[in-house]
């Protein structure tokens, strides 16, 4: 058990609680930096591509985590912002804008557009936001088809390669460079996210999540705070969408559908709502499940000669896992890890209800 004696107010908001934590995160950084070396040694970059995909999902997940996990606003339409970011990026690159400008710009514009769409709804209660974003998600495909000159419509659009000062980055021909690029963006965003949570803005997000009425009483402008959170969240999703486009190489009107939005939501719930780690844990799970299902299916087919080929099984299984998590581990994987760690740290004084949430009785939102 480690006791951290806080001798100044700054100790409360330091990036790392104590030195050991900094060391562990440094080791993790080394590990992710060294991962490509292993794949270069075995000469097979397929798995590295999958890991890159997980990182991209985690970036989008961080965006949604800020909105849902830290501000308490559910969004069922983050795939739409990914689509916005992706298509903006394609069009900027097509117009000859260098990637280093096109990429952040497409994220920011996606964020601004998203905020404009959501602004009228942000003033209402969370359910309305869920509804409006759900409607948005349903319409994405239609809009992509309607905006054919820019999006390629049903036929789809090819995503140009990344070019940074003459260095070509492509998912297939230079998987290592692409991995490092995505990793760099992910780390940059984590750093930004972590710092954001230490600022008054970030704290006001959490205040809004925990009690809107108390937050208002503390002088927080609800609409502005929510809009800010939505903007940052949609920007991250837009950036993830642009990277997703580069990773997929080709996007159509069906790439960013409702299932993708729901997968993002599932990801952060499984990972742990309200923790940055949750976005990464969730992305790993979402990355692993399809592989596991495919493996399980071929295992059953080869050993027991049972062929399971039921359409919709994947999403049903996803949904089932999601329900189990919400019912039995609402804090997600990261919460489970926290509990295990606390158990060992406090051994033998861990109590079962240490992480129990206070029971709250619901009141109507019709009186806001």
């Amino acid at each position, binding site marked *: 058990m480690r006791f951290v004696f806080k001798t100044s107010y700054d100790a409360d908001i330091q990036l790392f609680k104590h030195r050991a934590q900094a060391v562990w995160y440094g080791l993790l950084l080394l590990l992710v930096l060294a991962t490509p070396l292993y794949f270069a040694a075995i000469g097979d970059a397929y798995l590295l591509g999958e890991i890159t995909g997980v990182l991209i999902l985690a970036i989008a997940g961080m965006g949604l985590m800020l909105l849902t996990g830290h501000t308490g606003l559910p969004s069922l339409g983050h795939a739409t912002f990914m689509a916005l970011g992706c298509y903006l990026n394609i069009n900027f690159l097509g117009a000859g804008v260098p990637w280093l400008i096109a990429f952040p710009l497409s994220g920011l514009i996606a964020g601004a557009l998203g905020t404009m769409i959501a602004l009228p709804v942000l003033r209402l209660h969370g359910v309305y936001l869920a509804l409006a974003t759900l409607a948005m998600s349903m319409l994405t495909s239609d809009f992509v088809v309607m905006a054919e000159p820019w999006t390629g419509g049903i036929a789809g659009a090819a995503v140009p390669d990344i070019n940074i000062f003459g260095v070509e980055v492509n998912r297939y021909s230079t998987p290592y460079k692409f991995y490092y690029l995505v990793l760099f963006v992910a780390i940059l965003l984590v750093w930004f996210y972590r710092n954001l949570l230490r600022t008054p803005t970030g704290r006001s997000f959490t205040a809004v999540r925990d009690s809107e009425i108390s937050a208002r009483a503390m002088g927080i402008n609800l609409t502005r705070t929510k809009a800010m959170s939505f903007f940052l969240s949609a920007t991250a999703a837009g950036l993830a969408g642009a990277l997703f486009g580069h990773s997929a190489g080709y996007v159509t009107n069906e790439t960013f559908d409702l299932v993708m939005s729901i997968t993002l939501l599932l990801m952060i719930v499984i990972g742990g709502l309200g923790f940055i780690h949750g976005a990464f844990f969730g992305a790993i799970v979402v990355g692993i499940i399809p592989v596991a299902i495919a493996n399980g299916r071929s295992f059953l087919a080869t050993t027991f000669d049972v062929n399971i080929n039921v359409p919709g099984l994947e999403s049903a299984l996803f949904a089932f896992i999601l329900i189990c998590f919400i019912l039995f581990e609402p804090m997600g994987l990261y919460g489970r890890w926290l509990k295990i760690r606390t158990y060992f740290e406090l051994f033998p004084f861990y109590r079962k209800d240490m992480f129990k949430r206070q029971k709250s009785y619901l009141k109507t939102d*019709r009186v806001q």
Partner: protein
Amino acid sequence: MDFLQLIISGLANGCVYGLIALGFVLIYKATEAVNFAQGDFMMLGAFVCIGFTNHEYMGLDFWVAVPLSILVMGVFGYLFNWGILRHMFGQSQTSIVILTIAMGFIIRFFAGFFWSHEPTSLETPFAGQDIRSGGLVLGIDEVMIVVVTAILTLLFYLFFSRSRIGLAMQAASQNQLAAYYMGIPVKRIHSLVWGLSGMVAAVAGILFASKGAIDPSTGLLGIKAFAAAAIGGFGSLPGALLGGLIIGLVEPLASRYGPPGVSQIAPYAILLLILIFRPGGIFSQTQRKKV
């Protein structure tokens, strides 16, 4: 004539949306939870009835199958609340939203697994029969939808404003703790409401499947019903119906007279407009509490 015909089929469609929205608003009004699986409940209700009625499944008489499937769906709704949602009591609405969406996926999977992924329609005794008056051709199914919806809405309106249970449901929604103090069995009331809304979903599903074909992904229609509920004002039963009718009417008219692609977008565009200019919906139920 053409215009009138469009209006009538739009009305019938709108009634189905309205009924789904009704089930949705029932739950919202009484438990403050939002059931994003309501469309899938509707689809499940239709498939249960198809399973009882159609000759390739059980082949029961239509008039036996209908109450039976309504009952089954009522029990399903009750059990869903009792088995799953009750454990979420007092947790944030976001998790309930996510949970019901996940439930929708599972229902869709099982409907496809047990029945079929192909569009199936219900074998009704009145299929294909028309009422002709003047140059107007009215399908009995369409008339039936309108009549049943009107009756149901009236019943629910009376139920909520007059009966003791209805009032208890409203009380449980507005302040759970205070409702407990008044001796209202909040948990059981919640389960009852879910059962009730399962029944409404079954009625909507049966009406929908008797008018046209239904397949597991029809449940996504529920999203239009949510739009309907929001247009009418969340928590208002007549509002839900009105919202459903508006959407039902706008869709065929937009696809007939508007440019292509507009009819899919129109319901959501109306939703956004309403949310901007009259955020609480047409029959607004929202009051602001000053801090």
